[in-house]
């Protein structure tokens, strides 16, 4: 997965970067609550120069999905 993304998640969720894996799940995660999710989205949009839709933001369930979403947005169609 994108290393920059892993570092961003570690920073925003205040956790070691080694623990950030594509299979990390949002639901039930002690630090990935709804406000931190939005802070994460803002940080990602700033860092990668992308804009996620409301549906996309709400649909994110895992780090892996977020990684794919960013890749999609960054690849010119």
């Amino acid at each position, binding site marked *: 997965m994108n290393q920059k993304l892993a570092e961003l998640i570690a*920073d*925003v969720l*205040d956790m070691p970067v080694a623990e950030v894996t594509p299979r990390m799940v949002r639901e039930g995660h002690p630090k990935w609550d*709804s*406000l931190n999710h*939005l*802070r994460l989205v*803002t*940080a990602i949009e700033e860092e990668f120069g992308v804009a996620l839709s*409301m549906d996309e*933001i*709400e649909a994110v369930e895992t780090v892996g999905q977020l990684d794919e979403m960013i890749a999609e947005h960054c690849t010119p169609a």
Partner: protein
Amino acid sequence: MTDDLRLCLEASKDATALKSALAGTDVLTLVTRDAERIVRRLEVLEGAPDLRVLYLGNHTLDMFARMVSAASLCRGVHVDGRVGPFDQHMQMLLDPSLGLADYDPHAIFLSLELERVLPQLPAGLAGLGAAAREGLVEQALAAVASWIETARGVTGATLLVGNFWRPCRQHLGIADAKLGHGEAQLYASLNARLFDAYAADPQVFVVDVDHALATAGRRAAHGPRMKLLAKIAWAEPALPQLADLMSRYFASMVLPPKKCLVLDLDNTLWGGVLGEEGPEGIRIAEGDPVGEAFRAFQSAIKAVQRRGLLLAICSKNNLEDVEEAFRLHTDMPLGWSDFAARQVNWEPKHANLQDIAAQLNIGTDSLVFVDDNPAECELIRQLMPEVRTVHLPKDPSSYADLLLDLPELERVALSEEDLRKTEQYHEQAEREAVRVAAGDMRAYLESLETRLTFWPATRAEMTRVHQLFAKTNQFNVTTKRYRPADIERFMASPDWQLEVVAARDRFGDLGIIGAFLVERRTDAVAVDSVVLSCRAMGRGVETAIANRIKAIAAGWQPQGRLLAEVRPTRKNKPVLEYFDSQGFALLEATAEGTKRYGLKIAQAQSLDCPGIIVEAGAQSLESEAS
């Protein structure tokens, strides 16, 4: 800044160290991620917060609250913030299980988004008449008022209420302006009435959120996506500006206030060097852009003076040249008499700052020093770190803004005394001149013809009383910093007597210069606080206050004892022997240095205070005693 910040966060071992590491950080440059790091670090460090603040509202305030804590820390105030449940600002006051009493906040911030208070608003005001529009204003004001009145009943916390902010877009577009009672006017009228309603209220402060959002830029401040997803009304780009505003309140509530603005002259108050250009050559005229920049700066200084700060000059110049410059340029916003102290000589500036502080009877830590010369600024920073040094940049165009932006010059409210402060210091200087001429102390005191009036404090004196408790450092026996809500409680209670004392003499009116607070207990009367402005020290008012306290005690408990205590601080040396000199006996001295005193009321004597005439106050002694 992020790497530096990380290092400084890790190096700070406690909250106090973190405060000093962050001191001087420009809060407007804080980004949310930095604020988050600062607050996280603060949460794990040792150190009691200066203030506990509860945030309530009908929109999400979490990120805002953390930004306020980060900004406040940069200004030297440790704020512990807690955000109440969304849209439950009333429940928070009324339902004890939500923990208001346990948290016991010093301040509560309330922010309401108007569209949630008035759901009919987004449909536009086109169909409504002026009366219906007025009804909406009333409805919104009532929502705020009922919260405030409920809060007053359950907490003594300072209530900070955000005003209503105008959204980016108007529902009727440019036609709104032709409606006569449109949306723009609705917000203007609502906010004007909100300010009016609480201007004189000592517990409530209406915070100009609308202005901060406009300054930040409304387009950046409101994004629809975050509002829809999480009811976040204030987007991240606006948070530093809002936090800047909030931290000004918290810093004014907690930090000792600055009392005097010390100014250089050449290239500070005017353009050019007086010694070279001569009094005619300095740039201060209208029509000259550089001259106008200095005029704007002088006007800003004048405004700061009206906030209750004193002005002083500290300049390396020939005194005659400077006097000539002020005589020649009488149309300058500042005149010679605006300065309560003037040090114009060739001595080093740190010595002059010491002299200014001594002349005005204030500490050097209450000085703000403004100079364009980097070497002078560096000298003061190194030798007098307690002084707030402001180095002016080369271009004078921004001087006025720079001054008005300084958080150290903020006051949460102004009293009558603030408005007259400079005049009072000039009168003080005349008194000193007489003192030198009189030689004999007793003759001097008698020549002053000081007239004192005591009366029980009422709401009319609230701002001044609060200020005396908050600002008096030297003549303050217990240094208890009471909040407006505490003061109201004392005024209302039959078991407490809170009195103010005003003075005037042959040189002028000194206004309210002191206050004391005594408590009626079952078998004794206890002196809780005595505060006296440094302007009025050393002329017998101290003894007149003690006499007044003895008289009240005799009325309340003729057979009981009068108790008092002195708690030493770094600054209250003038009160350490106060009760000894008033005939009290020392009962005990604790390990922390607190001294407790007692005096049998039946044996208490009124002591002689030469030259002082006590005039009848609003309430006479006899009627109270009976």
